[in-house]
């Protein structure tokens, strides 16, 4: 017997009656693209970017790898839902049903306790965005993407969809055409933001798409931690999430981007994340891919400057009905660059976890170092794991370590733990918690606790 408790736990499983000021027709057309741009009162260059993207989208086919998109009928997706709320800086000013949604998800509390600022997106629009005044005074910018287009046009023009061009793949093109919401962050030179900024994305309507764009520019010598969380109630119809994250880590800067993806299991999550790292910069991706029905996500770091560093830590969970095609890409372009990849997956109850990785060390990237480790644990015989790590090294002075392991949970370990009084399900859950621990401990503490709670619920719930 298996239960789908992992993402559909009661904490996320509620819908809110919402008042929308605008809901687009189903499907994707050029007139929809113009409509979105017009409603956002965008400058001409952004409309042009959208239209170019839309043309690319019409030309490009689905990727030839990854999840089956056969069930996904784009003609049934509502691309743009604008809640009847203006952007607020105080939770009290939000419509009550939206405020209650985020309160149930614990966002205002987290902001008070441990964040430098928080943003909250409800369907297509950011409804709340706030940053501590003292950071604002230091010049740190934390805005919804639409406001940034208007208030920081030069910065946005310089960076928007420059790490991931629309033509990258079909869904980056779709994203460029209909993006809505998301955050813009600029951290000035040598400013170190101590507490994280957090953005939370909530899909509340059936058959809807969410297309938020997150753009982070960490100027020279700055530091930032950014946390992204997301969830949706479960619907019978499919939902679509095609977000994009672009991060520019300038000379000597350091960015850590943590995600807990917890979409409901009716969601196609086709997401693109990429960082470009300049000299002596550091990029860290901490990814927890837990929810959704089908996911394709390969956070990418391009190590462009000398001594740039990347660290990719990921946990992927594939439960009943889930196909999670996740991984990482690290492209070493400069000398003495280094990267660490630690990707772990758990598959259970017939779930399928596929690790797809690329490590590319170019001819110029002499004296580089990389250690790639991908480990998959299958809880039962119905589940599936694959690993496809591709490593390409074009110079002879670099040092590469690679390790890939796929295994079932060990009967001997279970017996050992049971001999100390743990039930079979507790023993299994403990082994799984231990398996993810090295990555889980990198998450903000409330997410790590949540992760453990969900593992207990799912693993213990899935056994007899």
């Amino acid at each position, binding site marked *: 017997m298996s239960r789908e408790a992992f993402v559909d736990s009661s904490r996320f499983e509620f819908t809110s009656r919402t008042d929308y000021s605008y809901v687009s027709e189903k499907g994707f057309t050029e007139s929809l693209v113009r409509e979105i741009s017009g409603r956002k009162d965008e400058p001409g260059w952004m409309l042009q970017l959208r239209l170019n993207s839309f043309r690319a989208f019409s030309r490009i086919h689905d990727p030839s790898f990854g999840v089956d998109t056969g069930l996904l009928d784009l003609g049934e997706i509502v691309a743009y839902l604008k809640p009847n709320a203006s952007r607020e800086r105080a939770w009290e000013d939000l419509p009550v049903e939206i405020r209650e949604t985020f309160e149930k998800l614990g966002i205002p509390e987290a902001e008070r306790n441990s964040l430098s600022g928080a943003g909250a997106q409800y369907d297509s629009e950011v409804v709340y965005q706030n940053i501590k005044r003292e950071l604002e005074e230091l010049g740190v910018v934390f805005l919804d993407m639409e406001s940034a287009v208007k208030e920081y046009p030069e910065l946005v023009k310089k960076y928007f969809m420059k790490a991931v061009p629309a033509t990258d793949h079909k869904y980056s093109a779709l994203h460029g055409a209909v993006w809505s919401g998301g955050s813009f962050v600029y951290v000035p030179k040598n400013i170190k933001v101590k507490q994280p900024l957090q953005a939370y994305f909530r899909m509340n309507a059936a058959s809807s798409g969410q297309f938020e764009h997150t753009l982070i520019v960490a100027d020279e010598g700055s530091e930032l931690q950014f946390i992204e969380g997301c969830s949706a109630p479960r619907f019978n119809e499919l939902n679509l999430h095609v977000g994009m994250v672009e991060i520019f880590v300038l000379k000597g800067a350091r960015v850590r981007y943590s995600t807990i993806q917890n979409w409901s299991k009716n969601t196609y999550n086709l997401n693109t994340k990429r960082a470009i790292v300049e000299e002596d910069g550091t990029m860290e991706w901490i990814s927890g891919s837990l929810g959704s029905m089908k996911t394709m996500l390969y956070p990418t770091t391009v190590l462009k400057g000398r001594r740039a560093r990347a660290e990719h830590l990921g946990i992927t969970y594939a439960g009943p009905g889930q196909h999670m095609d996740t991984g990482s890409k690290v492209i070493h372009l400069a000398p003495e660059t280094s990267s660490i990849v630690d990707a772990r997956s758990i598959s259970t109850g017939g779930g399928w976890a596929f690790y797809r990785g690329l490590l590319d060390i170019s001819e110029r990237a002499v004296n580089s170092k990389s250690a790639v480790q991908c480990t998959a644990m299958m809880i039962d015989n119905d589940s599936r794991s694959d690993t496809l790590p591709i490593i390409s090294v074009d110079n002879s002075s670099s040092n590469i370590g690679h390790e890939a392991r796929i295994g079932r949970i*060990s*009967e*001997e*370990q279970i*017996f*050992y*733990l*049971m*001999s*100390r*009084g*743990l*039930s*079979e399900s*507790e*023993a299994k859950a*403990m*082994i799984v*918690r*231990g*398996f*993810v*621990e*090295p990555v889980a401990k990198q998450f903000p503490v409330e997410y790590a606790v949540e992760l453990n709670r969900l593992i207990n619920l799912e693993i213990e719930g899935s056994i007899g």
Partner: protein
Amino acid sequence: MSLLRVENLHAVLKESMEEILKGVNVKVNSGEIHAIMGPNGSGKSTFAHVLMGNPKFKVTSGSITLDGVDLGDLSTDERAKQGMFMTFQHPQEIPGIRLRSFLIAASGELGNMESPIMKSRKIDRLSIDNSFDKDLVDRYLNVGFSGGEKKKSEIVQMQFLKPKLVVLDEIDSGLDVDALKVISKSINSFRSERNGIILITHYERLLEYVVPDYVHVYVDGSVVASGGPDLAREIQQSGYERYAVSLREV
């Protein structure tokens, strides 16, 4: 009433249906130490695993009774809750789970409701008693432990969880003399009127430090001879060959 009563126990390896326990009889009273000695490959460890309910094996006839409770149908964790415990010849490594938090969780399952702080203090004290490096308590369970450290970890677990009946499976293998002395001391101090101990060992060396009340010679899946501590010394001098032969003649 005996604390542990094993009567005419037969068991097979599930995978091959090969019989690996061929009618074992053992009675252990509270306060007693029994040594089970036998040559390599005689199935002594298997006996420990069958007592603990390892699902690789199936009991085909006979019975195991602990403190009046028939363990026959109980799973491994239920046996642990009845007070059964074994130390492993090769303790498993569990990455990501710290020995301290594991012991606190396991003792909770066994009904110890003390506060985690109290438990934590006891674990620290036991690790000092066993000259078990205190840092190891906060490392992942058995991961990267040396052979001797793993054995000490087993003994710390035994002392902390306070079972009624312990089976120490080759606790002496791979230990240097100093570690053997430490572990022997812990076993002797653990011994009480509330528990019984079975030492499974290949060598007589351990029995110089932990003196058993009874010695059983175990060959090819059953006990072929029983006696007092003298029997161990006799085996040390003349080996197991005699018993193997006598069995074949039967």
